[in-house]
């Protein structure tokens, strides 16, 4: 019996030993993050407000830290990129736009009908203007993000862009330019490009330009701010400005990822108010029929097209909207709700993009994208097809269990201005750039976890 017991003990011992040998937790075996053919000694993100982190219709510190440029660089840091230097605004949350208004937040708003609802409202009475008149430039820490809200492709070589004394000046750029405090009249203002190349060339760039060459025109309902022409010298024409930039980079052996331009007319700013959102009861329909009947327009109970001004439409220059036409978010909504704006009083041209105007804008975007692809291919740069990303967003997709769309406020990717992406949207966009880099330069840079970045905050 003693013998048996010892055998039993031995068996138990062997069993317990076996248990301690096998691990109970799976080992973390991450794939190596590799640099591929790029050199990240000096990374610079070049672009407009998207690259800068302009969102909620203002530039503010939190947005800058969650900008396309910053998120892209955060991922590049996993394969050796240096520290992120941003022309940070003074305040985390107030921010300012070029009209000195603070950022938008989601707040409660009472409309003309007395209804209370969530709506974008200004965060503060006034924007953080002080940051626009003080320099963020530091000679020690070269900015790794040359995203400038409002920067067009054709502005890259402009020496007036940062000149506070000229009408072309851009306050967001002036505050980060090396020579912000040059005396009036001294004349030597550096262009954006010269600032980027100042103190040593970058080794790798992201370029996401071109939206601003079209956007102001679209935002004006195609009434002002003409789009940059394709042809013309650098500083005038889109193509020459692009090739001039690409050529400069190439000559310095700088590699780059270049973004194509999305169809901006798919942004919530243009798509939130439906063309046929004029809902009428019998009484209102009858009264509109009385007004417009003689012109040959009729209204029915239920949904109808809004009425717009259109000089080309018959003798009275008024017509109902047709499917595909867009109303801008700048339209006075209370007037539409309570003062028959868009029905008895037709919407003015500046609030509407007609089929012809949309065609003009989209054709221009196609032309821009064609040259972007052409020259990026020529110089061997990676091409980030942002157009596909924005189109997917418009259709809606699910990201790690979260539905993303271009629905205003609730879509999860756009900020409250309906044009610029929020941090999560920027992370998703950064992933398009990273995917392109990985493909062209044979690197394995991990994508950003977009769910780590915030979306719209609800009160």
């Amino acid at each position: 019996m003693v013998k048996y017991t010892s055998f039993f003990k031995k068996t138990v011992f062997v069993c317990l030993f076996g248990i301690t040998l096998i691990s109970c937790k799976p080992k973390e075996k991450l794939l190596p993050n590799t640099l591929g053919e790029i050199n990240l000694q000096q990374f610079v993100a070049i672009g407009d407000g998207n690259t800068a982190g302009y969102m909620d219709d203002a530039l503010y510190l939190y947005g800058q830290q969650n900008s396309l440029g910053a998120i892209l660089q955060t991922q590049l840091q996993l394969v050796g990129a240096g520290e992120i230097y941003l022309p940070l605004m003074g305040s985390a949350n107030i921010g300012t736009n070029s009209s000195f208004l603070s950022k938008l937040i989601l707040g409660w708003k009472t409309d003309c009908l007395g209804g209370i609802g969530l709506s974008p409202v200004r965060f503060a009475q006034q924007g953080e203007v002080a940051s626009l008149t003080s320099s963020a430039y530091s000679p020690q820490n070269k900015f790794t993000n040359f995203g400038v809200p409002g920067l067009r492709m054709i502005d890259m070589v402009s020496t007036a862009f940062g000149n506070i004394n000229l009408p072309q000046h851009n306050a967001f750029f002036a505050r980060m330019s090396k020579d912000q405090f040059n005396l009036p009249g001294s004349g030597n203002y550096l262009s954006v490009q010269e600032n980027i190349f100042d103190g040593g060339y970058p080794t790798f760039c992201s370029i996401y330009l071109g939206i601003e060459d079209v956007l102001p025109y679209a935002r004006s309902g195609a009434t002002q701010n003409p789009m940059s022409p394709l042809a013309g010298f650098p500083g005038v024409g889109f193509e020459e400005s692009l090739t001039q930039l690409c050529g400069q980079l190439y000559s310095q052996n700088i590699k780059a990822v270049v973004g194509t331009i999305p169809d901006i007319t798919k942004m919530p700013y243009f798509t939130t108010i439906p063309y046929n959102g004029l809902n009428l009861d019998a009484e209102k329909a009858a009264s509109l029929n009385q007004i417009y009947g003689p012109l040959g327009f009729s209204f029915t109970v239920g949904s109808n097209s809004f009425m717009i001004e259109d000089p080309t439409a018959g003798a009275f220059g008024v017509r109902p909207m047709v499917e595909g036409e867009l109303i801008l978010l700048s339209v006075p909504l209370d007037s539409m709700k309570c003062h028959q704006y868009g029905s008895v009083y037709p919407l003015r041209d500046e609030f509407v993009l007609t089929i012809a105007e949309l065609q003009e804008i989209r054709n221009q975007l196609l032309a821009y994208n064609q040259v972007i692809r052409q020259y990026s291919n020529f110089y061997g740069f990676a091409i980030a097809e942002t157009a596909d990303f924005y189109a997917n967003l418009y259709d809606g997709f699910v990201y790690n269990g979260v539905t993303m769309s271009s629905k205003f406020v609730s879509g999860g990717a756009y900020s409250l201005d309906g044009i610029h992406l929020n941090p999560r949207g920027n992370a998703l966009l950064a992933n398009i750039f990273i995917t392109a880099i990985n493909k062209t330069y044979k690197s394995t840079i991990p994508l950003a976890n977009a769910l780590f970045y915030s979306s719209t905050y609800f009160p």
Partner: protein
Amino acid sequence: MKRIYLGALFLLHFVCDNHGFSQGFQVNFQGQRQQGMGLAGVAAPFDGSSLFFNPGSSVFLNQNSIVGGVTPVFGNVLFLDSATNASYRSNSPVGTPFSFYAMFQLKPAGKLKVGLSVNTPFGSTVQYEDNWIGRFALTRLELKAIFIQPTFAYRIADHIGIGGGFVISSGNVNLQKDIPVQDTNGVYGHAELAGKAIGFGYNIGIHFTPSKQLSIGLTYRSKVAMNLRDGEATFTAPSSLEDKFPATSFTGRLPLPSVTTLGFSYHPCSAFTVVLDINRVGWKVYDTLAFDYATNTSSLLDTKSPRMYKNILAFRLGMEVKPIKNLALRIGGGYGFSPVQSGYVTPETPDGIRIYGTFGVGYELSQKIRVDASVYYTKIKRSDTNLETNMSGTYTTIALATGLSISYKW
């Protein structure tokens, strides 16, 4: 015998045809002897646990038996997200499947047996680390089902026993996930769905001993549709959205699959036994995980998540040796395909092909009391992109289960 062999071949053919992949949230820890032998034992009656494994086999035991056992399961999941090359872990609590059996013979030589089986053949508790990338798909899932099975068995001939039991299943579900809406501090909403479910089924089996050395068992445990009524759904959300996420009751349904098992036991001498079980699990019943809320809003719609499980086979092989009279040593292993098809792998059951090994030991302390213990180990790896959530990566699951039971017979 030849026919059975052909039958087994046919089953194998079925596997290859279906490119089947193991076992969803099935828990196979219902008897320590079987656990020691690769979870097999439909044709090898041992103690009260045969009420569950094969009621028909219980009449071949000349004993009354009371058995109680518990098997703590240490399960760990690691999810490696392929796009971000980052990994996240589960921190699930220790699972405690248990079993209790009481078996009595009403006629001499055990011709008629009655018994009660109480155990937990299905269940799962998985919880993921905070802020993991799949938080909007799942943060925690707790599934518990206790099967209570009163059983009768009768030996209709010297070599054939049949038995059956009625199953009452009582369960709990608690499912939690984060909601992708943030308040002004950036804090996400959270959803918790909790409820009790009840379901009914049966367990029948036949045991046949063509020779002294060979036993064959065939059992069928029916599916059990767990119906969840009056579940409670509670949400936290930013105050401006609270009316979109009202606390509400909900109903749901969770089908637990049928299990058909063909088992063999070969017993050439008293000191040596080999067992083989072939399982077919009718997972196809789990095609959708649906929740129907009593109150719907634009943000709270009834959900229907496709699961699209498919029927699977699992093979279990084990052996037992008795080097000395009171001692049994057991070893075994198994191979199970996964019911989860490509495109449908979820964090709740990150299942894949399951290969496992077991060993066990049993010791008879006296004529009446014995102790049995077992160890089970498996590592499952599954890469997938879920079609519903678009989560894409590799789940690696390691489960270690160490069980102990005490039985008393007379």
